[in-house]
């Protein structure tokens, strides 16, 4: 055995409080596994925001529709990476697709993922961008022209009939897509919620809590990206859109908070065998990440900021933008802390309910901080490429918006 690993484990042994089963000293699901539900949550949340436009006809959200879809795709492409890197034998990953165990929640990953990527997201994106791709393929110069033509799958038909079909297809896909997005992230919650051996995870509410926090984080991310993107492009922000989206964000945070509070109160009230060790867990090990980061900084303060921004009419657009921007960053931090508290928190107490372990994060190792940062930054790089290549507004709309901005500027 690697002497470094052994030394690390001996060090952890000194930090155990109470009694743990001897095999429990090693924390098996590391910060990479924190990143995984965080990333898929962003995917599901961004997609659900996009569906508001198509299924519920929320016109105000249209300016972020394409951005949401591309965000969902960029993050979905990276989502399996932390899982793959975390495997003890990553070279065997394909077994999960070839010989899945039908009773395993985790075995469904490949199917849920493939369905969501190919059955929903890529399809909707293709139909949404098809017309623009055809137009761009005609306008652009050769290397890019070929790329656009290939991305449009060499379709050329942009007649009204074809575009009407595109719209119909998008609507149909979105209708299927919403339950699929729920499935994608609810399923991640189920992976944790169905582990009956672990009282911190085992909860029927877990998929719902995951889902709501996914919606919260996805919306917050799209708001963040929209604000950054418009600033980079020196375009005006559509305040109607921003106000609307942050309203949804506000409600989502309220529902998310209520669900988590319900879960918490329920555990406390039922006060099962594990309540003592869980109480110790949250006061001794998770105080910072649960009470300070997740609840105070990630929920209460952003909720306060959003209430402030919504309630007072005195705030002008710039101040509201600043408030929203602060809120979405805090929310993002809070949701990451939520994932941390679930994944790492659930492994810091012994299943003998008699002791607590310590997680010491690696920095440079394969399951360490550096790799996790790469995994978390990578989707932004992919998204940047998407946004460079693909118009985030419909081409005709973009010209109209540009004209409006110009006329607005001259006033």
């Amino acid at each position, binding site marked *: *055995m*690697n002497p470094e*690993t*052994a030394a690390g*484990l*001996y060090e952890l*042994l*000194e930090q*155990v409080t109470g*009694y*743990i*089963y*001897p*095999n*429990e*000293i*090693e924390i*098996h*699901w590391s910060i990479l596994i924190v990143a995984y539900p965080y990333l898929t949550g962003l995917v599901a949340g961004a997609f659900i925001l996009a569906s508001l436009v198509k299924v519920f006809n929320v016109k105000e959200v249209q300016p972020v529709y394409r951005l949401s879809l591309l965000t969902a795709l960029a993050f979905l492409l990276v989502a399996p990476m932390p*899982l793959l890197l*975390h*495997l*003890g*034998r990553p070279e*065997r*990953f394909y*077994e*999960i697709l070839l*010989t*899945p*165990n039908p*009773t*395993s*929640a*985790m*075995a469904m*990953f490949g199917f849920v993922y493939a369905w969501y990527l190919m059955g929903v997201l890529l399809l909707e994106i293709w139909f949404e961008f098809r017309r623009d791709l055809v137009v761009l393929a005609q306008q652009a110069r050769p290397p890019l022209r070929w790329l656009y033509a290939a991305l449009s799958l060499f379709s050329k038909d942009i007649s009204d009939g074809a575009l009407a079909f595109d719209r119909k297809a998008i609507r149909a896909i979105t209708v299927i897509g919403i339950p699929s997005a729920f499935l994608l992230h609810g399923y991640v919650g189920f*992976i944790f919620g169905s*582990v*009956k*051996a*672990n009282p911190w995870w085992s909860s029927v509410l877990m998929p719902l809590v995951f889902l709501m926090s996914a919606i919260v984080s996805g919306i917050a991310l799209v708001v963040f990206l929209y604000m950054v993107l418009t600033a980079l492009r020196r375009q005006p922000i559509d305040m109607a859109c921003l106000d609307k989206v942050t309203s949804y964000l506000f409600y989502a945070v309220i529902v998310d908070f209520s669900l988590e509070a319900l879960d918490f109160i329920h555990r406390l009230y039922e006060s099962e065998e594990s309540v003592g060790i869980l109480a110790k867990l949250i006061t001794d090990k998770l105080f910072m990440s649960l009470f300070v980061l997740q609840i105070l900084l990630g929920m209460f303060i952003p909720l306060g900021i959003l209430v402030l921004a919504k309630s007072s009419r005195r705030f002008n657009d710039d101040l509201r933008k600043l408030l929203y921007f602060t809120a979405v960053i805090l929310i993002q931090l809070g949701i990451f802390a939520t994932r941390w508290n679930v994944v790492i928190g*659930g*492994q810091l107490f*012994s*299943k*003998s*309910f*008699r002791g607590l372990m310590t997680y010491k994060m690696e920095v440079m190792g394969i399951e360490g901080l550096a790799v996790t940062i790469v995994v978390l930054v990578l989707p932004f790089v992919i998204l940047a490429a998407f946004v460079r290549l693909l118009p985030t507004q419909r081409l005709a709309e973009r010209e109209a918006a540009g004209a409006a901005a110009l006329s607005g500027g001259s006033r």
Partner: protein
Amino acid sequence: MNKRDFLKGAILFFPAGGLLAMARDASGKANGKAYEPASHFYGMGIEIDKCIGCSRCVEACKAENDVPAEPFYFRTWIERYQIRPSGESVVESINVKGRKRDEAADDRDFVRTFFVPKLCNQCAHPPCVQVCPVGATFQTKDGVVLVDKDRCLGCRYCIQACPYGARYLDPRTHTADKCTFCYHRVVKGLQPACVEVCPTGARIFGDLKSRASRLVRFARMNKVHVLKPALNTEPKVYYAQLDGEVR
């Protein structure tokens, strides 16, 4: 070689092959029937009052099964319970060296003290088998839960799902590992290593399908209990004289 020699050789060769095969079958029969997994169902009994905490079982297990020597990997281990008059228990895993022991504690401070050997419970409803994404962990017909280290992905979901802390990730293969009831010995009619070396007979191994088995006798002579029965994993490691403090 001419044609004649070749034919002679062929005439001798084929019947000789047949005779060899017959001899092989006959020797198999002499050793008893071939092992038939479906006609067995294994379990273990543990008589807590007989355990003296010598840890020979732990050492034998590590040697027999090539378990890493470091005190973070155990297929079986011994817990020591010391229970105060207030009901509070002080629990320790006696095989984990390196942690400071409370040597100052006076025996008179405790109302009960005892050792509890732990190992994989070889559950009849194993949560580890349920969650394994690729079926690398499986249950044999004779009731033993095994890990195929050539299929295991090292995702560690089984380690999370085991309520008994019986599993670890082998640092050499990066795959999950745990007690096999010494399956390689059992199928040859031998006892698991831990049972064989126990000086007090605290561990009893046997076949639940055989009326003559020592385990069935153990279950007849003792009131038995299993660990964490509320989780409905249906362990096949049965404890006699199990204290309610043991989890």
